[in-house]
């Protein structure tokens, strides 16, 4: 009788238990690593995290100085990543909509996606070197503007491809409903696709922002570093990742500890942005069709 095939079901259940064990171990390793990172940053950074850190600029140089704060880097990073993200959004939204609306899965669509994927994979130090070479050619100095432009380059493929993947999941019924009312393809893209995909597009933008604010290598060559708060697009600016990098490289333990504090501030900003984005996309979800 088939109900009594004990060996058969025993083996299947054993397989399930075993696979479940592997999944749990993987989850534990990843969660543990994340916890360890947070723990180290907090334990080492928290003692140096004072009100001065977030309200003052460095005193005695960013490499040697033991007093003052990193307000220059906080504001610099906000400008760099904010500006880079804004610039990248201006280009990535039209590209993503064009890909969806007019190129689709055609040969050209595939080429564009492939090149975006390649761009996504290029290390940021290469972007930095590219930006530096370009700046020398046109006689531009390290500046906030150059940093913004190069961050936009880095964020663009990430945002566009993330949006593209979201927009491709657009239900075809919805498009047809809008077309049946006599919409042009452009009106469908602008008024229906963006509405439906707003939560996903927001997530894509914040993904780009997260990459931009945390990137050290590209701004090293292009934005430079300074102890002052940036006041002009044409002047160099400090940034948080480089504040971490320089201070950790200092021979003084007190300055190193300030590097961890800077890392903690950067982590908190990224965390706040991603929690904010979760909240925002939950709100934008209201009208989407599931």
């Amino acid at each position: 009788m088939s109900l009594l095939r004990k060996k058969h079901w025993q083996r299947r259940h054993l397989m399930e238990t075993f696979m479940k064990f592997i999944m749990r171990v993987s989850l534990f390793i990843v969660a543990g690593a994340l916890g360890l990172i947070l723990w180290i940053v907090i334990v080492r950074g928290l003692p140096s995290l004072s009100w001065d850190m977030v309200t003052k600029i460095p005193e005695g140089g960013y490499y040697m100085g033991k007093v003052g704060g990193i307000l220059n880097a906080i504001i610099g990073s906000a400008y760099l990543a904010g500006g880079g993200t804004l610039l990248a959004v201006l280009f990535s939204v039209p590209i993503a909509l064009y890909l969806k609306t007019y190129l689709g899965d055609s040969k050209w669509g595939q080429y564009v996606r492939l090149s975006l994927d390649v761009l996504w994979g290029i290390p940021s130090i290469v972007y930095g070197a590219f930006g530096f070479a370009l700046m020398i050619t046109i006689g531009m100095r390290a500046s906030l503007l150059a940093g913004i432009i190069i961050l936009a380059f880095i964020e663009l493929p990430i945002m566009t491809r993330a949006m593209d993947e979201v927009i491709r999941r657009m239900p075809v019924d919805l498009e047809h409903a809008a077309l049946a009312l006599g919409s042009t393809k452009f009106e469908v893209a602008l008024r229906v696709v963006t509405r439906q995909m707003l939560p996903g597009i927001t997530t894509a933008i914040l993904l780009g922002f997260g990459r931009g604010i945390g990137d050290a290598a590209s701004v090293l060559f292009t934005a430079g570093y300074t102890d002052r708060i940036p006041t002009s697009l044409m002047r160099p600016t400090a940034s948080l990742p480089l504040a971490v990098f320089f201070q950790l490289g200092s021979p003084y333990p007190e300055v190193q500890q300030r590097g961890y504090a800077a890392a903690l501030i950067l982590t908190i900003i990224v965390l706040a942005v991603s929690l904010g984005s979760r909240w925002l996309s939950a709100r934008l979800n209201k009208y989407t069709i599931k």
Partner: protein
Amino acid sequence: MDSHIQVKNLNVYYGKQQALKNINIEIPKNQITTIMGPSGCGKTTLLKTFNRFFELTEDTSLTGEVLVDGKNIYDKDVDVTEVRKVVGLLAQRPSPLPMSIYENIAYGMHIHKMKKDRSEYKAAVRHYLEIAGLWDEVQKRLHDPATSLSIGQQQRLCLARGLAVEPEIILGDEPTSALDPISSQNIESRLIELKQQYTTVIVTHTLRQAKRLADYVIYMYLGEVIEAGPAKEVFSNPKHERTRQYLEGQF
């Protein structure tokens, strides 16, 4: 017969496969025409040639003419968005736009720039929701998402949305097949009320619905029109053997 749509020598191909074979029919003005036939006979394809929706499927081609008020909608000087404004579509499953109830109705009027100011839009939204018999149910929640409505309400919303762009022809692609009996009945009675002002073409594969709605009937089989004529004649005295078999339920 005062015909609104005339189809002349229409052939439609999906790739190399011929889906419609030499169709010649006329669809009467301000009446309900139902297209019947077994699955895969080309009913929906024929319907989709009336609002140029079959073009949305890749690798399709067409020969012949579809005339609306004497003008071929496939002529080079005819814009597809204008065709779809004049020829509205009620789909098989309701598919509200990702907007509020109000915006769903206003959307079409906005893109065609049909009204002057907010108050005109408001009045029009109310008007069409009333026609679709939905106003009383939604007047207090116009800014809720359209998906908060039941499926039956959503289909009436889609009807109102379609009517708001002031079409002359309403196409229905099995518009009640996803609905419960009461909602279906509701949609059917709307369509009957509206037939004074609109030419209506409904694809259906339920014979009873065809009998309830139809003034004029087209029976199709394997991509061809077997029989077309006034509902009374076709139902009581079909000329063609195949039509008779279908009506007697031999399929």
